[in-house]
């Protein structure tokens, strides 16, 4: 069963009013609020904000139909800086609030901005349930592998051994891989991007916004104050190519440039490994298929990742079509209303109040 079979729209923005033809194209400025931005100098959040502000005009939506809902954390200050509708809510609960909004308002493009602590610690339950339900939302998870706002405690994505004020001898928790977690919850759109890779981020944001259903985009974000350099090996031009696995649906999964290029091949027993291109021979090359119905292959790709960041897949892991929760909920209500001949009037309400078993006095 696909959304199209159900007569449901395929684009996440299908019901969202677009700018009328002939109206001047929007610019980054149209999406910049008058509020002073208060992140620390050098914070990766600035880079993401600039990317989102300059990307939003590309969607061609009416500004008033865009809503950013966030939780609590440095990252969750995001909505204040965008001249759209916005709600800075409470710690971890943004996916729930956004679910209520998206379910009652199909005409909005609803975004959630959250941090690794917000989304994966206190709000972990809401995140997995939003993904499971496939509510029409775009979730941007800013992962700096630290609790920024509370001044630097380790988070559920901090690598083991992270020394912080609350883990002076190093953290002993095993971290979540947010992409694996999302795929485990059978999210229909899962991607990872690097804050500093503007072009890639833009491509992913567009695909995520247009995805009908919950799109989760993990964005690696540097916190120069409490966890500086967490992703440095991925930004470092000398190492980048050997570490970043750029996922392209329909193409073989590779890493490394030119003669250092390695190709992902299947190993008997169901695992996979990178081998130098020259040694591939007759081995079965893994071709990425983001649209695969079964999330297992995407999950396997997400497991290439390790805390050492030897190989880090970036790009869109999964992008499949499945009916969204909010479409299905509205369809049930609409069908009930249609079957009864239209919206309930006073008579219908009166019949409801009377119920089936009445008696009359006088």
């Amino acid at each position, binding site marked *: 069963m696909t959304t199209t079979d159900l007569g449901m729209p395929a684009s996440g923005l299908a019901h969202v009013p677009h700018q009328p033809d002939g109206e001047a194209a929007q610019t980054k400025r149209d999406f910049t609020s008058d509020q002073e931005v208060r992140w620390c100098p050098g914070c990766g959040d600035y880079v993401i904000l600039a990317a989102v502000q300059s990307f939003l005009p590309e969607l061609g939506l009416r500004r008033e139909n865009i809503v950013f809902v966030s939780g609590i954390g440095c990252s969750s200050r995001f909505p204040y800086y965008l*001249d759209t*509708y916005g*709600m800075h809510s409470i710690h971890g609960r943004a996916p*729930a609030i956004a679910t209520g909004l998206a379910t*009652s308002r199909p005409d*909005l493009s609803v975004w959630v901005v959250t941090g690794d602590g917000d989304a994966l610690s206190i709000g972990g339950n809401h995140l997995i349930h939003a993904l499971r339900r496939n509510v029409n939302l775009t979730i941007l998870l800013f992962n700096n592998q630290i609790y920024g706002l509370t001044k630097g405690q380790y988070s559920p994505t901090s690598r083991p051994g992270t020394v912080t004020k609350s883990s002076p001898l190093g953290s002993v928790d095993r971290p979540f891989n947010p992409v694996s977690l999302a795929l485990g919850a059978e999210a229909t759109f899962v991607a990872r991007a690097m804050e500093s890779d503007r072009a890639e981020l833009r491509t992913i944001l567009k695909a995520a916004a247009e995805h009908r259903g919950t799109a989760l985009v993990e964005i690696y974000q540097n916190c120069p104050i409490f966890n500086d350099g967490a992703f440095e090996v991925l930004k470092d031009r000398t190492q980048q190519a050997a570490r970043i696995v750029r996922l392209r649906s329909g193409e073989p999964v590779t890493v490394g440039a030119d003669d250092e290029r390695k190709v992902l091949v299947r190993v008997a027993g169901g695992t996979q490994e990178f081998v130098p291109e020259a040694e591939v021979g007759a081995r079965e090359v893994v071709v990425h298929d983001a649209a695969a119905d079964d999330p297992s292959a995407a999950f396997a790709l997400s497991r290439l990742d390790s805390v050492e960041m030897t190989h880090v897949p970036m790009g869109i892991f999964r992008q499949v079509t499945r009916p969204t929760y909010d479409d299905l909920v509205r369809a049930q209500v609409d069908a009930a209303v249609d079957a009864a001949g239209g919206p*309930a009037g006073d008579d219908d309400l009166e019949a409801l109040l009377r119920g089936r078993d009445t008696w*009359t006095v*006088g």
Partner: protein
Amino acid sequence: MTSKTVQTLDRVVIRFAGDSGDGMQLTGDRFTSETAALGNDLSTLPNFPAEIRAPQGTLPGVSSFQLHFADHDVLTPGDAPDVLVAMNPAALKANLADLPRGATLILDTDEFTKRNLGKVGYTSNPVDDGSLDSWHVHPLALTSITVEALAAFEGLSRKEKERAKNMFALGLLSWMYTRPTAGTEAFLEKKFGARPEILAANLAALRAGWNYGETTEDFASSYVVQPAPMPPGTYRNITGNTALALGLVAAAHRAGRPLLLGSYPITPASDILHALSGMKRHGVTTVQAEDEIAGIGIALGAAYGGAVGVTTTSGPGIALKSETIGLAVSLELPLVVVDIQRGGPSTGLPTKTEQADLLQVMFGRNGESPVPVIAARTPADCFDAAMDAVRIATTYRTPVVLLSDGYLANGSEPWSVPSVAELPGAPVDLATEPNATDDAGEPVFRPYLRDPETLARPWAVPGTPGLEHRIGGIEKADVTGDISYDPDNHDKMVRLRQAKVDGVTVPDLEVDDPTGDARVLVIGWGSTYGPVAAATRVVRNSGRPVARAHLRHLNPFPANLGEVLRRYDRVVLPEMNTGQLALLLRAKYLVDIRSHTAVRGLPFTTVELADVISQTLEEVR
């Protein structure tokens, strides 16, 4: 056929008691419907265990349903039954203490086996050991008579036939109290329509029960209770939870806004979720959330988008929702939070009633976080209370807590169905344009610019062009809504939010003092309404004046409350907690309160409260 007498009674209290699997709730419900159709006034009290099927035949597994009906207005489900139907030894043991000597006892003797007696610690059989001599006992082999009556149903097993014994009991009681059975027959046809043999067996058992009463010598008399005089109208019997669900739908209808419920199942609130889930035709959206926090978050998100957002729960859920209620206080968005109170703390007594969440909903949040609080007083009143909650939430853009409890939720009474045109409420306006001008004279939108009368801020929903703005839980600057850490601004905003709640229009408290010379006032709130009214009636009938008042609004209080309290020599306040409203009244009005409290998971009895009032009257003599 023996000749039978027919006696007229003014009131009767019947309690059906059996194992959770015996269908006592259904039997009680059906008898109630028959009684309602006959035009008696009535009040019901179901009482069932938290376990779905506790071990069969044990005391924890006993489920009961009490019904009080009369030819005059009924205020409570009755203190003590006149008739107890006990389907097994456990039901007898669990309920006998409530049965006054001389009352009627109908027992299913088939169930009084050695094994069943042993399960509840009877060493001899009360049916024949003389221990029940003070009661009027009808020992009936109910199970075997039912099975015998269904001998012709060859396709049914003995077990299936036995299961119809509750219909036999219902038929017998229907004969005893001359209740019509047509409604029950129609009900059974609907319920078992797809299984014709089961249907026929249930109908046959119902008729056999009736005939048994009519033909055997065991029952010498049947009884008539005349209809109660009620104001003209169309009536239905309604439980508190159903009335509450209907009130929410009606209020949203009148407000012209869609209704969205975000809820997580919890006893005794789940029936509201069930009811609203079946009202899609009325544009109602229900989201069964992953937890209590999500339930209220979803409701708040929908409210932000312009819906009447509602969340329903019980005390443990309120604890989880507290932080989001605080957010709604700060965002100043309309939200209705329904708390069907049950025994606490912690899991407490999930299926029993209590009023111990008052202080939690008043103060159980961080910071100065005032919310209007209202409480329903009877099952049917849950409708009006729900409408009032939506009115306050949408008018003042604030979360409102609506308190009900397990007794109101599951109890029922006749309700005069209102006509929709007469219902209160009017379409609620959303903000559509800028409400101020900036320094340059340009129109701008100020999300925290208040209505001078209500102090409500505009409800400006996403999708409205030109009103784009950001809101959040961080303190906001007055008028602009921008983030502000300014000390004076915070002080001002805290006081503004308080002033807004304090300014909610609440009708003055009415005092019921027929003789006008009472020196003692009994004040109640929530579900104590019935017992308090019944107790004052008893006291007045003995010629002693006593005044009575009932609070619907617990925050803010009616403006005349202090004056009313000070008017009397003594104020008696019964509560099903350890004195929560008393604490508030003493603190706010510096009046002494005679706090009478009980937390037994059951409503007060009339006798108990009449005693308390009588004692107080003695003290002021």
